[in-house]
């Protein structure tokens, strides 16, 4: 047996193994420090620096002192930092290269702390932040229902706005001129009063006295027919003139109505455009709370985007049913089986972080954080508890990151009870929510990259202040000061990077009402000025033609009289002539009857 054993080889093995172990113990700390700083910087996009990292042997783990993570967007600020962290590792998985942290404890976690040196990575230094700051300015201005600077005067508004009053006035003017020409032309052909009198005289002459003979009758008849022809032509002329006047009156009447309505339409349009009515306040909630809500959502999204890529690597096909990419086949893979103690490549079983934020102490607990959730078979849990905060009686944020199956399903539940909100700058007119007692309930679900979130906030005991100098800011502050409670509900849905955000509130209606009252006076004043100016413009059109329009009416009446007169003359002469003929025939018949009667009497007398 001895001849098969090489004792020197055994000693070599033991020595080599011991040397490797010693090397690992000595180098592990610095190597871990390098790895944390290098990988951390890649993830954060800014410097990650650790004061020291040392290996602990019982239990096996690492101790990290003073770690800072710079803010990529504000390099002179730390995104977070902590004074001390201890990570307890599981030994057996570690031999397989699997980092399973049984417990992580982080003390003195702080956010947004100042740095003495820039935390930007060498190649990352750029002017992006400056550009971003510049682009932010004036955003609110663009969204305002009207300028926060002084409102333009009525004269300025009228000068810059295309007015319907002007276009309607021009149309009326042109139309009047056209009709005037037509009427003048028609009126020229209408007989005057002298002509009508001569018709009367001539008619009386023709019809007066008895017809001496048939020839006399025929001569008069001929004369009468000629007179009738002339009168008929004149009557047609009168009718034509009357028609021209009627057309003018109808057309000008329509145009005058449009012209008279135009100032009202102009005023209404200008009012809507310059949002002088209550509609302007309808979206004020979004303007007031939009920037703040956007900032909160932005921060949440920032952290989510940082974490999300590491929640599932796509390499966690636990049951071996996911086909591998061809280039990775040669490397092989771990096939996992059901167990109570799965070993993903990385797993943070439990973490307990205490964070100092300006509002107080936050306790953050994490469970089952891994990039291979399918291997672990459990979703990750993050719980933020803010029961020790100064301004919130109870704050609870429960985050469940379930990436076991695709699509991933992440849920955030937020509850804040009796949040004493102080000094919240609102995004409009320099107003500030000085104090309020807020209750918040929120639920956000991200599934397959789609966000669906809803949050309800009840603001009570509200007190608003504002130092705005502009008319709008002053009016807004006064309107807000009359409100002492309101609700805000926010909804977000759609793509994670650009969700559709809706902010609704009964503040809109309350503010609208209060705002309207405050604005009414100024609004009425401006509206009156606008109305006066528009009336002036209306008068400049209608005033000039008022006499002409009155004349048209008078002319219409005059023409009607003339037409009636001609008609009457025409009808009267026919009646007189026929009556005469009939009377003479009747008289003649009666005389003959009397004559025959007398003759008969005489004959009867002679018989007796």
């Amino acid at each position: 047996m001895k001849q098969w054993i090489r004792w020197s080889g055994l000693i070599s093995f033991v020595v080599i193994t011991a040397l490797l172990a010693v090397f690992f113990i000595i180098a592990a700390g610095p190597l871990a420090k390098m790895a944390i700083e290098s990988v951390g910087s890649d993830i954060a996009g800014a410097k990650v620096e650790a004061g020291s990292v040392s290996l602990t042997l019982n239990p096996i783990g690492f101790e990290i002192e003073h770690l800072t993570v710079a803010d990529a967007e504000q390099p002179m600020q730390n995104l977070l930092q902590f004074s001390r962290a201890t990570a307890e590792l599981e030994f057996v998985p570690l031999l397989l290269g699997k980092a399973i942290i049984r417990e992580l404890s982080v003390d003195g976690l702080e956010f947004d702390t100042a740095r003495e040196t820039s935390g930007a990575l060498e190649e990352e230094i750029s002017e992006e932040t400056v550009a971003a700051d510049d682009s932010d300015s004036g955003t609110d201005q663009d969204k305002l229902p009207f300028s926060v600077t002084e409102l333009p005067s009525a004269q300025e508004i009228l000068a810059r706005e295309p007015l319907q009053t002007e276009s309607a006035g021009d149309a009326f003017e042109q139309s009047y001129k056209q009709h005037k020409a037509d009427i003048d032309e028609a009126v020229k052909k209408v007989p005057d009063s002298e002509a009508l009198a001569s018709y009367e005289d001539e008619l009386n002459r023709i019809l007066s006295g008895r017809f001496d003979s048939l020839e006399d009758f025929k001569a008069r008849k001929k004369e009468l027919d000629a007179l009738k022809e002339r009168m008929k032509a004149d009557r047609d002329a009168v009718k034509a003139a009357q028609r021209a006047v009627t057309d003018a009156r109808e057309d000008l009447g329509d145009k005058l109505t449009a012209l008279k309505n135009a100032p009202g339409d102009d005023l209404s349009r200008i009012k809507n455009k310059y949002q002088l009515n209550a509609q302007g306040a309808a979206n004020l909630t979004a303007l007031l709370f939009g920037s703040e809500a956007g900032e909160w959502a932005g921060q949440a999204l920032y952290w989510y985007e940082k974490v999300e890529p590491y929640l599932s690597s796509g390499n966690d096909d636990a049951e071996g049913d996911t086909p591998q990419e061809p280039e990775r086949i040669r490397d092989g893979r771990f096939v996992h089986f059901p167990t109570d103690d799965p070993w993903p490549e990385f797993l943070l079983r439990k973490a307990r972080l205490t964070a100092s934020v300006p509002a107080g102490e936050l306790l953050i607990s994490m469970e089952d954080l891994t990039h291979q959730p399918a291997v672990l078979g459990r979703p990750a849990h993050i719980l933020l508890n803010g029961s020790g905060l100064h301004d919130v009686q109870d704050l609870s944020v429960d985050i469940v990151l379930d990436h076991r199956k695709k699509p991933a399903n992440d849920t955030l539940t937020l509850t804040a009870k009796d949040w004493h909100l102080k000094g919240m700058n609102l995004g409009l007119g320099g107003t500030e929510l000085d104090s309020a007692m807020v209750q918040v309930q929120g639920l956000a679900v991200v599934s397959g990259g789609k966000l669906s979130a809803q949050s309800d906030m009840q603001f009570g005991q509200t007190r608003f202040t504002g130092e705005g100098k502009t008319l709008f800011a002053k009016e807004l502050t006064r309107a807000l000061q009359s409100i002492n409670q309101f609700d805000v509900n926010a909804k977000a849905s759609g793509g994670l990077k650009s969700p559709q955000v809706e902010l609704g509130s009964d503040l809109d209606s309350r503010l609208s009402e209060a705002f309207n009252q405050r604005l009414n006076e100024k609004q009425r004043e401006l509206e009156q000025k606008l109305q006066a100016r528009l009336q002036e413009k209306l008068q400049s059109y209608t005033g000039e033609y008022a006499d002409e329009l009155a004349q048209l009416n008078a002319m219409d009446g005059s023409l009607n009289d003339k037409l009636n007169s001609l008609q009457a003359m025409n009808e009267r002469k026919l009646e007189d002539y026929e009556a005469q003929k009939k009377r003479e025939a009747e008289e003649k018949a009666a005389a003959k009857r009397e004559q025959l009667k007398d003759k008969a009497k005489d004959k009867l007398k002679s018989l007796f």
Partner: protein
Amino acid sequence: MLDTLAKLLKALNSESAPGQIAVAFSLSLIVAMTPTFSVHNLFILLLALVLRINFSAFIVGFAGFSLIAWFTDPYAARLGESLLTNPGLQDTWTALYQNDFWRLTAFNHSLVLGGLVISLLAFVPVFLLTRVLINLYRQRVISWVNRLRVVQVVKASKFYSLYQSLAE
């Protein structure tokens, strides 16, 4: 590497038992066919050091078989995958998976299992073949090779001097 090759040639030409060299080659096959940093390879290394086998042959064999493994790894991984996902073996694997020792062996890694199965199956044939080839080499090839002009040229080279110095 020249040194190691020289030592191997010395072993081949010496009176070292062919079995010692053949076992070294066979053990190196296991290390080459499976991921190097595996727990079982630590055990193989221990064997290679402790057993009186030719360590130079182990190293050269590892280098040579690693080249072959580069081509065979995908097949080994597929074999491991098919074994690990074989429904008939699920109970066995699941039972082994509950034990930390077996998990430490990374038996559930497709390339480890596939490579190990191939290398264990090839262990005995490689052992026997190597032994036969060494015997053939010693009996027939050496004298024939020595007569070759190219070998005579090699003998005049620096490598041969090194070999000679080690052989003495």
